[in-house]
């Protein structure tokens, strides 16, 4: 990666934004490099959409600095800066009486993009067969694809996607992330808000958690999970030679608490990552003690719940 590619496309420093009676963002620091997908997560009302609008220049920050491609952004974006953006708002109904093709032709002319790009983006989002139909006949998922298509017009360098997979079916979601993956390899930086943690987990390069007006956690998901020292959940059933005394002895040695779920005859153990390997070894090496072992390592959902509200799931 060259130095220009690794320089952040977007950089926010101590950005603050308040509305009458509410300080939504207190101090936001965030950087996104070319080819990076950053997932912006947080509960409703934490300011994810506000943050995107600040980047786009639809709102002006009260304080702080926003740099786009290293250039300081004033309260309004220049047309050159706007040309770097591709934006997909949370909900967009478009124009029901226009066809998909007319819609993109219209929006492409406003982006001053090449008309040849229109067919290209239709192919990218898989709407080629529906481009002649009026938008009022589109399903929610098709409208979402059309929204993504318009965001891709004009070859943007920074995509801002506000809950982009809302309304997409599972295959649509899969295709959507394939598109994002391709764009990343082309050096497009992506800031995407989402509540669908399972989707993000294996796809985002970094996570930024918005909580209380600040980015309370930022980094790669693996790093954050590692730092948070989230417990692994181990489930098993009694083996043929099960002995409660032996089990209690092992658990005592590894300072692990057990919980027994009677109706499924399942034991549930919660252990720290540092203990996990030794505990599993001890359980498995005792002949016939356990059966049907399932190990759940901590995931993004656990991380989110812990970081966001201090809750733990078992």
């Amino acid at each position: 990666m060259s130095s220009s590619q690794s320089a952040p496309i977007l950089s926010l420093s101590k950005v603050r934004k308040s509305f009458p009676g509410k300080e939504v963002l207190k101090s936001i620091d965030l950087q996104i490099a070319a080819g990076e997908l950053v997932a912006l997560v947080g509960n409703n009302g934490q300011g994810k959409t506000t943050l995107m609008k600040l980047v786009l220049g639809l709102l002006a920050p009260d304080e702080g600095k926003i740099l786009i491609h290293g250039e300081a952004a004033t309260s309004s974006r220049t047309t050159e800066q706007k040309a770097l953006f591709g934006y997909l708002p949370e909900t967009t109904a478009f124009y029901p009486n226009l066809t998909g093709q007319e819609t993109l032709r219209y929006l492409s002319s406003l982006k001053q993009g090449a008309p040849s790009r229109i067919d290209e983006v239709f192919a990218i989002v898989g709407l080629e067969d529906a481009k002649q139909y009026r938008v009022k006949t589109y399903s929610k998922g098709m409208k979402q694809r059309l929204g993504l298509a318009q965001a891709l017009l004009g070859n943007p360098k920074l995509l801002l996607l506000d809950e982009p997979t809302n309304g997409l079916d599972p295959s649509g979601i899969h295709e959507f992330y394939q598109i994002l993956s391709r764009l990343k390899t082309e050096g497009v930086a992506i800031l995407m808000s989402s509540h669908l943690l399972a989707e993000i987990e294996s796809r985002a390069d970094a996570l930024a958690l918005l909580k209380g007006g600040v980015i309370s956690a930022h980094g790669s998901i693996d790093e954050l999970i590692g730092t948070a020292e989230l417990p692994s959940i181990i489930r098993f059933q009694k083996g043929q030679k099960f002995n409660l005394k032996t089990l209690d002895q092992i658990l005592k040695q590894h300072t692990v608490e057990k919980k027994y779920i009677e109706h499924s005859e399942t034991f549930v153990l919660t252990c720290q990552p540092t203990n996990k390997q030794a505990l599993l070894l001890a359980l498995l090496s005792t002949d016939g003690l356990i059966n049907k072992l399932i190990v759940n390592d901590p995931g993004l959902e656990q991380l989110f719940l812990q970081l966001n509200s201090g809750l733990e799931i078992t």
Partner: protein
Amino acid sequence: MSTFNILFSIARKEFIDHLRNGWIIAVGMAFAIFSLLITFVGFGFTGAVGIGQEQSTLFSLINLVIYLVPLLGLLLSYDGIAGEHERGTLDLLKSYPFNTPLLLYGKWLGLFMVLATTLIVGLTAPAAVSIYSGHTLQAWTLLLITSVWLGAVFISIAILFSVLILDRGKLIAIAIGVWLLFVVLFDLSVIGILVSTEGDVPMNLVNLLFYLNPTALYRLLSIDLMMDEAMIQQLGLMGQIPPTPTLIAAITAWTIIPTTIAGWCIRTSEK
């Protein structure tokens, strides 16, 4: 060059949208029926007061325009910007690489084209009947131009409110309020003042009041351009109509000022 491309793209989209939703055909046909009725019936002025048939028909049509065209302009445009806001496309378009006031000017142009087409549809049939009966094309052309212009004033007013208040429910109420104010209440208020003072009001003040109402300006301009001396005499307006350039300048101001304020508002709303 690209500024004009953007402007015409927005105007074209607006026109196609209204053509497809049936607005132009439905309203144009309704206007045509009213106009034809007036043309055929002649409103009872004919003969009784000694004024020519074409003059009386045109005068009746001017009154029809005063009632209907401001309402058409307002209903056509009241959600111009608020509609984009509700669809979620306003923020999207504001993020696009063009100056946001162009969105507003392009919309204005598109809505103007819609209204002009509607009025052409509405006035073609009565004009054809009149011209077939041996009357001139000139008066009808002037009626069309001034009517479209009156509509343009109300498109400007509606777009200004649409930028200021992004709520369609409130905007429809405001549109009807604006129509009532300029078309009904204003004239009634002026008559009220004249009656209550038994006409003891300086004529200059009354003339000045007319500049506050674009429909009053339209009425004076239309009479000035289309009516002959006998009709103007009959209407009691001989020597009372301000000079034509003054009326044109005043209506131009009513068209430009609201749109300019709207452009300024949409630019500052980005902050």
